Every structure is written in C-alpha cells, then in structure tokens.
C-alpha cells in the first residue's frame, strides 16, 4: 500500500498534508481492544485508499456483492455466509457479567436451560421478560412475573421476538452507500462529520428515533444536546401516543401520563380504546380487568361499555358495545360530559343519546369506582374530555392516576417530524442519524420523506433490518437485536427495566447507545459500560448489590413514577360537534405486524388476526351494511380514494364494524423487507396523511371487479346451536349458579359405556386444564407462545389457504346476535386430552395413546400418517405435516428450536401435548427433591403467556389445585361433552354483565 498519496480526500485522516497523523493513529490503537490486527497505518487511519484496497484485494468477491446478484453466485455466497454465521453463532458468551434470574449456575450445564431477566420493547415502552436459553442461544420468551407492568404475561410480539433474532434477513454488515464497509471506517467518518457539526454547534445535526423511555439514552441525548446545542432530537412513532399526551396537556396544562387501575373500576367506558391489547400497559390492564370478570370475584363483576368503529379485543369483551364511527366518538364523549354536568353538547350523540344516557347513569352510580378511557386513535380533544369526565366522576386518584411524563417537555412526534423535514428542505439540517424506524415507508404520505433524505449531506441509519429507508442512507449500521443488547427502558408505569444480552451480537450489531456514544466521543464505550456507568452515577444505595439485583430481577424495584395530583384546566366548552357524513377511513396498527416492523416475522404473519382470522394479509375492513350497499364480497378489490390519493385493496366484511367506517391496518405492503414479508398485504400508509393520522372522513370506495385470495383459518363463525361455547349473564348466574348446565344436554354418565368405566385409573397425577372464557380476551398470545415452545412450523399463505396451518392452540371466534352489532366470544382450543379419546381407537399403529396421567400422546416416531385420528377428532385440534414444513431452514434459523421438543418431519400428525416436556422437567425436579409437583410450579406455555390468566393447568387428583377448584365451579363444562369424550380440558362458561336498563 503506497503511503504517498496525491489525491486528498476530505474525510480522510491524512487530509491537508497527505501525511498520516501519527498521534491520531496512536489514539486509535489505544481505543482498540481484543484481538484486532492491523495491517498498515492506512488501515488504522481508515483512509479511503485502504478501504479501496480492501475492496480490490478480493475484487471478484467484492464485485459480486454489489452486482445484480446472479443466482449461482447468490447461492455460493449464501452458503458461505451461512457457514460463517453458523460459526458466529458459536461465539462465547458475552464477556460482561450477566446474572441468571432464578439460580446462579456454577457453570453451564448442557441440556439445562437457563433463564435471564431482560426487557422487551414496543414503541419504546418496556415489558419485563424472562428468556430461556439453551447452551447460550435464546429460544423462548416468558413474561417476568415480578415485573409490575406485565406480571408474567407477554404479548404476541414479545413471544415472537426470538424469531426476529434469528431472522436471516437481518442487516449483517455495515454498509456505506450500499457497499460493505466497517464500523471503524464509519467511526472515522463520524469523527470528521461531528467535528464539522461541532463548529456550527450542531446546527445541522438531527437525531430521529422512535419513542425512547431509556434513562441512559435520555442522559446521552442530554449530553449530546449540550455538546451540540443547536442539534435537535425528534422522537416519533408511526402509531405513537401523541394524541394521548396532547390531551393531557390540554386537560392539565402540563405533560402527565395517565395510568388506570381497572381492578378498582366497577364500570368502564372505553371510547375507541383498545386498552386490553394495544396500550403500552395493556398486559397489566388485561390482568386487572380479568380479576373483575371472574364470577367468583369478591367485588362483583365489572361492566364494560365500548364505543368503537372496528371490533377490537376490548370491544369483544364489552357488555355493551356500540359500533360508532371514529368521528362520532367525540360527540358521544361530549354528550357524556354534558350529562355529567360538564360543558358539553348533548345533541351530538344523535341516535345514540339513549345509549350514552344509560352509560352516564351507570357511571354516575359508580362514581369513584368507574373509569373512562379514550384510545390513541382519538384526537387530543377527546382525551381532554375524558380527563374532565374522570375528574367529574371522582375517579382521579382512584381508578385513574397520573404520573410525571417520560419527557419533561411535551413530545409531539408528528410536529417534530414535520419540523425535521422542513429543516432538511430548507438546508438548515444536513446530517441525520436515524435510530431504527422506517420513515420513508411510514411517514404520512403528504410528507415526502425520501425526497428530504436525498438532500442530506450525511444520513446514517442504525437498524436491525434493511428497509425502505435504508436505501436513502449513506451509512447503514446493523443494529443489535434487543436480545443482543445492553440497555434500559422504562415501562409505562415508569419502572426502569434493564436489558441484558442473551447472546453476543450475531452480526456485530450496535446498540443506539453505542451509536450516540460514537457521536459524542471516541474512543467509544460499549453499551455495557454505558449503561453501568450511568446507573452507578445515580446514587443508588449499595450500587453493586442493587445492580446485581436489577440484572437478576430485570428491573430496578421502586423506580415506578410516583402518582401526582393534577389540577385540571377549565374544561373547554365543546359545542356543536357533529360527525362528518359519508364514509370514514380509520387507521389502526395491525394486530400482528403492528406498524410494519414485524412484517418479516413468520409467526406473527401466520397468526390469525382476531375476528377476521386473516393471515399474511391486511384488508379494508368494511361493515356488512356497506358491503350490501356496494355489493361487495370478501376479497373483492376496491379502490379507496381518500383526499386525492388512491389505494387498491381487497375488502373483508367484519360484523360489528361501524356502518360507514372502513378500517385499514397499517404495516403491510412493504417494498423492501425480508423474504417473509415481501409481497404481503397492502400499504395503508399510502392514504395516511398528517391531517388524518387516525381517521378522517371523505372516503370514496369503488369496486374494481377484481378479486384477491385471502387465507383465513376460520370460515364459519356461527356456533350452529351446538354446545361448544356457553354464555349467560351475571344476573342469571347470581339467581342460579347452575343455570348454564341446566340449559344444556347432560353429559353421559360415567357408566354409560360398554367398557369398564374404571378401565384406566389415574392414581398419580391426573393432568387437566381449565380455560376461563370470562377472562380470555382473545389476544392470540397463547398461540404464539405455543408455537415458540413446541417448534411449530409456519406454512405460508398458500398452505393456510389450503387449511394446513399448524397451530396447536387456536382461538376460535363466534358471533352471536345481529350482523351489525354482534356479541363476539373467543374460545381458545387446544387438545382436549379426552379420557375417551376418539383419535386413539382408530390409529392402526397405536401412534396416539394415553399415558397413565391422562395425557393423550402422539408418538411421532410411530406415526405413519393415516390422518384417521384427525378425522375422528370432534375438536379438530390435530395438525398434520402435509409437506416438509421445516425444510430449508438455515443453521441460524434452526437455533430458535426448542431442543426439548422434537422437530416433526413430513407425514406425521402432531397436536397439543400439554407441554409434556415441561411436565417431565418439573417431574425430574420434584423427584430429585422427593416430593410431588406443586400446584403452580408447572405451567404450560400458553398458560404462562396469557395476560388474563384464563388458562390454568394442573393436577386434577389434587383437590386443592387451582384447576380442580375451577372444574368444580358451576360454570365449568366440557366442550361437546355429550359425545362422552370426557375431555380433560374444560371451560368456564362466559358471563356478561349487561346493564338491566339497556335492551341489548
């Protein structure tokens, strides 16, 4: 490598003189640690010549990488990189100290999984998780039972994050202008860039991140903004909480966060608020809510009113649900305010005046024990109204509490994004650092973000995947996955949760903390040091002990925000609110791919969406009335015209959809994503403008005459009068607890069989499961938890369309009542483990048999695949490997598999095992300690994940076990018990608590 150079590159360290700055190189060498070899001074200096040399040294390979990829070479390189990633997977544990959650292993015992507490993030908010690792590879996520925000439960997203970790489509190398580069090269470039920025006090520097609650990150940003006072930080989420915060600002004149205590609420009104599933605190809310849905609850059953445009998880739990356009909610809230003596407009509720009057009366009766909540899809004015209403009802400080906000200043993502784009357009901002996010795809369509990006002199993106935005970035840095990162974040209640890595970054990814640190100082620190240094400076008592406990617990106890008393501003007089006429377009995050970030996650893609049971797609959800009016069928492609823009998308008719509302789920129709997400769904962002982020009127719908094939897992939503799901009311239950079983055909007696009823005696354990339909919210988390635990493959859209999805537990939905406002019930259906199992007698090779504890077992090795068992299963819970569904997995993808569960090959039947591997693990532990398995010690994967604790598993021979007690409840029933299958999985009939003063 020649040292003398003739051309001067502005960003090289040899600038000005063409000489190498030796002192700088010394410094760089000091910064390096570990086995870093260097070949020449140019390398250390990171000169462009050296980069060029690196590129030329292996010219054939280097050119391959940027060429249009030929198939043959693609395969070659894929093969080589897979081999390498496989090796990378064998990297040693991170050198930092990580503390196991339950027991400190003297050493790693092969075959024995370890559990670590860490944190999962969604839109910046933390939930505590426990990660199971097998020999250093994380395989399963559980909720952290001690964490105050989720109390042991997880969301479907949390369950599925482990699949993202091993996604082969993740960003794997630092890219400079699309060409492979190195982190060191990036650092040297940043050095110069930041030097330039420092001179103008950071005037050109902008940081764009999602919502961030991390105290460490905030402190870093404070330091950055102190060093670069003119730089700006934009926090923005495509489906963020702007409206919620603005609403609080209006109501209280300051930024506060609102937390609900639903376990104290007797009457709840949710105004387009899906607080049970899409709120940052929904896991806690679901738990609180469910404690008041059980028929034996001490304080009596709560009553839930929901008004919403499109069926939500929360809406399905409602005792009274009103299908109402999103634009009509404000008028409804105003009418409610009026009835509670606040300045409001009674007339706006229109035909729903009677409904809201009854609700108002009910809320008033429960003043101080009621709660009103609005969703983030409603404008700030509705949130402000709701705060005043809660105040008027005396709920504040009781069922509704307020805390200080995460950020001292009001964060308005939309406004700061607009400002950012304006700054770039005007040229005042020339350098943008993006921490994750995908604004090119998900920014409002009236903001041309990609055009703005093209104007930037320097654009850096840190991301786990390469997406639409990456293409516009000069530098793309692979981000470490959350399971590879050190960090921290706050839960919605403020609790600080620590993120610790479970595995060394597979692809050398960096954390946001490291990137910001690199902007601030070099040598850079690693994120462990950053996090630890920050917290050690926080005056925590006995830091070392606190720190170790925090790592072990996954959170720092006692860091939840304290509740504060707020004084509300004078309620504004809202007058003459009349919802706009015509069709309305409503945007919602997709239940599975959220804002688009999970689109490459096959588990989530194949998870049937609540109500529609659609997989791998989104649709324009329309009401039956609109479908009738426009003569539309499921799958008919329509052209939606909204404020001058159009989108072609197929429709899905959703009972319970507000008549004139069309709901689009965001997150689909991605242009640049991995192999899983490419070509799925339709891009709803194409119609989402900054003045109608959540809904807006003036939608036109035109039938195109084309149709589109959807893949759904449930096609029939009518229970056909069968004894599958039992429902009643709380009032009926109170007058006669046995009213449900009195209504249905009695199950055959024990002796109604030709065989001896005591043919099989279960003298040891007798496993059984009880599923409470009262608390089940239908969130689907159990299905993903089961998928992760039991190595269940995904099959793809085409196979789902053929009816070959593999979920061992499914959540069935049944509609009851009218088409426009039906009652919706969810029913999770795993294997019933029948004592008289119809599947067992018909198997010709005895591949499905009973064990002495009552498990209906499937012996994969023995199964020859006649599928007769499935035909004879009245519950249709058996799943068959019609093809080799596990084929073609890369070595990295295989790492997600649970080593305690067989990976099934083609041609064998499989089904729910009651997590037999967990039973055996618990049995081994118990036998070593010479005792029986304790009740509660052993939980199935679905049970562990359930936010509402609707699933209880245990020993039916133990009369004190929770499952035995639940089975003894009068509401307990066996599905299709009249077939004398004697199911071990039983259900608790669903009660609703309707207001006796309302008709429906």
């Amino acid at each position: 490598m020649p040292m003398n150079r003739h051309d001067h590159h502005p960003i090289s360290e040899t600038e000005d003189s063409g000489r190498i700055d030796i002192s700088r190189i010394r410094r760089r060498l000091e910064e390096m640690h570990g086995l870093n070899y260097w070949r020449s001074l140019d390398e250390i200096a990171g000169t462009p010549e050296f980069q060029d040399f690196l590129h030329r040294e292996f010219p054939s390979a280097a050119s391959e990488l940027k060429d249009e990829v030929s198939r043959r070479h693609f395969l070659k390189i894929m093969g080589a990189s897979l081999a390498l990633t496989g090796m990378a997977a064998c990297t040693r544990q991170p050198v930092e100290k990580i503390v196991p959650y339950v027991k400190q292993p003297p050493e790693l015992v092969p075959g024995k999984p370890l559990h670590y507490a860490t944190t999962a993030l969604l839109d910046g908010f933390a939930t505590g998780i426990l990660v199971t690792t097998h020999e250093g590879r994380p395989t399963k996520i559980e909720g952290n039972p001690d964490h105050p925000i989720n109390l042991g439960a997880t969301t479907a997203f949390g369950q599925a994050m482990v699949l993202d970790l091993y996604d082969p489509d993740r960003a794997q190398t630092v890219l400079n202008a699309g060409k492979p580069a190195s982190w060191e090269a990036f650092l040297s470039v940043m050095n110069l860039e930041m030097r330039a920025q420092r001179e103008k006090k950071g005037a050109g520097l902008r940081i764009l991140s999602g919502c961030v609650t991390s105290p460490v990150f905030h402190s870093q940003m404070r330091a950055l903004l102190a060093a670069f006072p003119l730089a700006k930080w934009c926090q923005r989420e495509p489906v963020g909480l702007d409206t919620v915060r603005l609403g609080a600002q209006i109501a209280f004149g300051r930024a506060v966060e609102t937390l609900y205590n639903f376990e104290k609420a007797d009457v709840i009104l949710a105004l387009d608020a899906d607080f049970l599933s899409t709120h940052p605190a929904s896991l806690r809310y679901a738990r609180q809510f469910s404690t008041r849905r059980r028929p034996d609850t001490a304080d009596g059953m709560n009553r839930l009113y929901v008004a919403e445009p499109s069926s939500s998880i929360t809406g399905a739990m409602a005792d009274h649900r009103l299908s109402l356009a999103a634009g009509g909610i404000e008028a409804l809230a105003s009418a409610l305010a009026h009835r509670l003596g606040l300045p409001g407009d009674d007339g706006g509720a229109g035909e729903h005046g009677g409904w809201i009057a009854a609700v108002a009366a009910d809320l008033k009766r429960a003043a101080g024990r009621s709660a009103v909540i609005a969703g983030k899809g409603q404008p700030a004015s509705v949130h402000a109204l709701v705060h005043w209403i809660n105040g008027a009802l005396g709920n504040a400080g009781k069922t509704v509490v307020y805390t200080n906000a995460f950020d001292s200043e009001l964060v308005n993502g939309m406004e700061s994004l607009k400002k950012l784009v304006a700054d770039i357009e005007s040229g005042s901002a020339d350098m943008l650092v993006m921490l994750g996010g995908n604004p090119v795809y998900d920014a409002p369509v009236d903001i041309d973000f990609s055009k703005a990006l093209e104007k930037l002199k320097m654009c850096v993106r840190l991301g786990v995947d390469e997406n639409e935005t990456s293409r516009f970035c000069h530098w793309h840095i692979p981000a470490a996955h959350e399971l590879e990162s050190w960090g921290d974040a706050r839960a919605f209640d403020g609790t600080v949760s620590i993120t610790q890595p479970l595995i060394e970054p597979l692809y050398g990814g960096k954390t946001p903390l490291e990137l910001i640190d690199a902007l601030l100082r070099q040598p850079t620190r690693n994120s462990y040091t950053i996090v630890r240094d920050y917290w050690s400076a926080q005056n925590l008592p006995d830091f070392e002990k606190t720190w170790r406990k925090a790592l072990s617990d996954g959170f720092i106890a006692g860091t939840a925000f304290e509740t504060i008393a707020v004084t509300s501003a004078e309620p504004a007089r809202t007058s003459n609110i009349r919802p706009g006429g015509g069709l309305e377009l409503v945007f919602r995050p997709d239940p599975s791919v959220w804002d688009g970030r999970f689109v490459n996650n096959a588990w989530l893609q194949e998870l049937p969406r609540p109500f529609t049971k659609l997989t791998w797609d989104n649709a324009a959800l329309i009401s039956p009335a609109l479908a009738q009016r426009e003569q539309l069928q499921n799958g008919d492609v329509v052209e939606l015209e909204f404020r001058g823009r159009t989108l072609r998308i197929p429709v899905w008719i959703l009972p319970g959809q507000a008549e004139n509302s069309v709901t689009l789920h965001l997150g689909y129709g991605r242009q640049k994503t991995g192999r899983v997400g490419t070509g799925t769904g339709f891009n709803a962002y194409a119609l989402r403008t900054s003045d109608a982020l959540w809904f807006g009127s003036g939608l036109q719908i035109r039938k195109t005459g084309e149709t589109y094939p959807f893949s759904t897992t449930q096609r029939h939503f009518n229970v056909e009068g069968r004894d599958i799901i039992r429902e009643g009311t709380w009032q009926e239950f109170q007058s006669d607890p046995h009213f449900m079983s009195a209504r249905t055909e009695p199950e055959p007696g024990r002796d109604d069989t030709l065989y001896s009823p005591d043919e099989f005696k279960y003298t040891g354990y007798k496993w059984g499961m009880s599923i409470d339909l009262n608390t089940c919210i239908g969130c689907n988390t159990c299905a993903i938890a089961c998928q992760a635990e039991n190595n269940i493959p995904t099959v793809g859209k085409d196979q789902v369309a053929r009816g070959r999805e593999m979920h061992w537990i499914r959540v069935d939905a049944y509609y009851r009542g009218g088409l426009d406002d039906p009652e919706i019930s969810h029913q999770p259906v795993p294997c019933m483990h029948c004592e008289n199992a119809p599947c067992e007698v018909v198997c010709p090779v005895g591949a499905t048999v009973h064990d002495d504890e009552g498990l209906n077992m499937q012996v994969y090795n023995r199964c020859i695949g006649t599928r007769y068992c499935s035909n004879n299963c009245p519950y249709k819970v058996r799943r068959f490997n019609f093809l080799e569904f596990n084929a073609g997995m890369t070595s990295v993808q295989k790492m997600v598999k649970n080593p305690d569960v067989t990976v099934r090959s083609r041609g064998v039947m499989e089904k729910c095992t009651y997590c037999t591997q967990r039973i055996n693990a618990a049995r081994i532990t118990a036998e070593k300690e010479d005792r029986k398995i304790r009740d509660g010690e052993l939980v199935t994967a679905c049970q562990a994940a359930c936010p509402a604790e609707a699933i209880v598993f245990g020993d039916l021979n133990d009369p004190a076990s929770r499952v035995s007690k639940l089975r003894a409840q009068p509401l307990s029933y066996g599905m299709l018990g009249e077939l004398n299958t004697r199911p071990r999985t039983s259900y608790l009939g669903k009660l609703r608590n309707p207001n006796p003063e309302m008709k429906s």
Partner: protein
Amino acid sequence: MIGDPPPGKSDQHGNPGELIAPGQTYAGITGRITSIPLAKQPPRAWYFGFAIGFALLMMLFLAVTWLLVKGVGIWGINMPVAWGFAIVNFVWWIGIGHAGTFISAILLLLFQQWRTGINRFTEAMTLFAVACAGIFPLLHLGRPWVFWWILPYPDTMGLWPQFRSPLVWDVFAVSTYFTVSLLFWYLGLLPDLASVRDMAETPLKRKIYGFFALGWRGSAAHWQRHQSAYLLLAGLAAPLVLSVHSVVSFDFSVAIVPGWHSTIFPPYFVAGAIFSGFAMVLNIIIPIRKLYRLEGFITTRYLNNMANIMLVTGEMVAYGYLIEAFMAWYSGDKFEEYMMHNRAFGPYGWVFWGLMVLNVAVPQLLWSRRVRTNTVLLFLVAFAINIGMWVERFVIVITSLQRDFMPSAWGMYTPTAWDWATLAGTVGLFLTLLFLFIRFVPMISISETRELVAEPKKIPA
C-alpha cells in the same frame, strides 16, 4: 362368425336370448377363444386401447413419484378434510372389484349358468381393480415407506398394530380377498391355459403357456380335483365378497363423524359395491364383445341378467340413501341432522344431487327391457352408475368431514391436479392390465363354455 341371437326371443324366465349362440362345437369354441391370445397381431383397436391405458399409467408413475418426493401435501387434503381422493378412489376400486368374485363364486354356488361367458373376464377385472385399490391406502400414508408397521409381524420391540382400528381390519380383508380372488381365478384358468398350450404353434408359446398350465393334462383325476378345489375356493370366496366391503365400510362407521357413524353402512356398501362392479363389467364387456365379435359367447342374455342385478342392488343403494336421511331426522341428533342438510344443501350440494341423478334416477331405466338389451343404452347407464358410485364415495368422505362437530374448524376440499392425475393414473393401470389380459390370456372360460354346449339348457333344481 356368429351374430347376435335374434332379439325378442325369450326363455321361460322372460330372459331374452340364449346363454350361447346355437351351432357351437367343442372345437369351434376352443379354436375361437384360443385364437385371441395366440394371434400374431392383436386388432388395431387393441393398440389404441392399450396406448391410452399405458399413457395414463405413465402419468400414475409421475404422480406417485412426485408424491413420494414431496408428500401428501401435493393433494387437496387438509384439516378438516384429511381424507380425500385417495380414500374415495380406494373404496371405489374395491367396490368395482366385487363383481368378479360375486359372479364367479356366488353364482357358481347358486348354479347360475349365466356366469360362464363372463366369469373369467370379471375375475380378472376384480384382480386389477383390487390392485388399483390397494395402491391408495399405501400412497395416502404420510410416511408410506413404513406402511408395514400396520402388519402384525414379530417386532423386536413388541409392537403390534392397534387392532381396534378398522384400518388394520382393512389390511386383512383386502389382502385376503385379493389372495383368494387370485387363486380362484388362476385355478379356473388352468384347463384353459393347457388348451392354449395345446393350440400354440410356436415352441416358445407352448413353453410359456405350458409353464403356467402346471402340467394340466385333462385327466379325469385332474378334473375331479380341480372341480372340488374350485368349489371349495368358491365357498371361501363367497363370504369374502360380503366381508371385504363390510370391513371397508367400518373405516367410516366405526368413526364418530356424523355421516360416517351409521349401522347401515356394511350392507349398503356391499350393495353399492356389487352395483358398481357390474356397471364396470358392462362398461368393459360391451366394447370388448363388439371388438372381438364375441356376441356368440357373451350373449344379450348376460347383459340382461347383469342389468337386472344392477337394478336390484341399485334399489338397495337408493334405500340406503333414504334410510340415511330418515335416520338423520329420526335420531333427533343435531349433528346428523346438520350433516344431512349440509349434504343436500351445503357447498357440495350439487355433488349430492348429481349422485341422486346418477345412482338413483338413471338406473330406473333398467326397468325397461329395451334398455337392458340395447348395448348402447346399457353402456351409458352403466357408465352413469360408475361415475355415480365414485361420486357417492366423494359425498360420504368429503361432505362428512368438511363440516363435522366444530363450526370453527369447518373447511372445504378442492382436489388438485395431482389428485386427478392419480385417479386417472389408476384407470390407466387398470386398462393396461386389462388389455394385457385380453391379449395373452383366454378371456372366456373354454372349459365352462364347452359345458354349455354339452348341456345348453341345464336348469338347476
């Protein structure tokens, strides 16, 4: 050449025509029948038929190869319809395989002489149909390479089949039926193979036919033993005709699926099997008879009698349909009621009504002797019945599974191209074997036909 007997001439039972055209001699019969396998060249039409069969057979190989490579997922089966064309085809072919042994064994035991002209042919057809049927239970397995686990063999791990499963009974029933049918067919063939050997002009042919004739010399002792063995085998085969499809019906009736769980299935399946078996015999024999000008041996009388059997079994099948519907209503079982309703008015309702036309309405034409004795019309009616019986199995298998107990799990079934290819492929296998049979084996029993000449009007007591 001997033409059709004059139409309209009836015997004392009102049956049209004779069992054998007048003027036949022993030598004439032997010469005429052995001339077909011994001919240097088969007729042009033979090549045509064989080519079709062989082409379809190649398609079967392709379909099966792809199936073994990819798995049963190439078919349209799914959850809840885990059984599809494979089982439909299996039951259909087994049903077709019923006519041969019924004609040979039961009619032999009942001294019905009108079996003579067609028994060899129908027995061969039985074997080929059962061979076609036998393919499907193997292919439909998820892991066909371990099919032998269904057999009771001394396993070192002490594993046995699960004897409560009707699929195990199936294996025994079908394999026994195939074995006995094969033996019965071959035993009856021995004297004829010897005749061909004796008539053969080239040494090679003499050697080959001689090998298979097992040294038959036609001595009285041979005949005596042959006859008693033949009768004994007939006695063995007769109950098998009834048992095999009863057992096949257990595959369904033992299950708890509404639409399957029914006690009428065994007799209803047996009647349906004979119904379709005779239909297939007619569909094959009418063109062959024309092609080889065998109207003298397979007279209209045979066709008429077979049509009568079809009429009777057809009415039994129709009764079965009626009783199924009646029981669905009478039982008061809501699952059964829904099943019946779904069958008739559900998404596959058009298939059900097609079945009613093909299997119930069309066979009523057989009340007319004009139809029974008109080869074209009879061929068409038989063809309709063959399709109808396949459709019947489709209705039983698919519409029952498609919507059973759990409405949330209800689904649809759409066969794929591979499903159709496999069905057509087994038709190819059947035709290929059949054309090879008529090319190389005497397709009409020489010895028994000669008995007809000796005692043309023998009426049993």
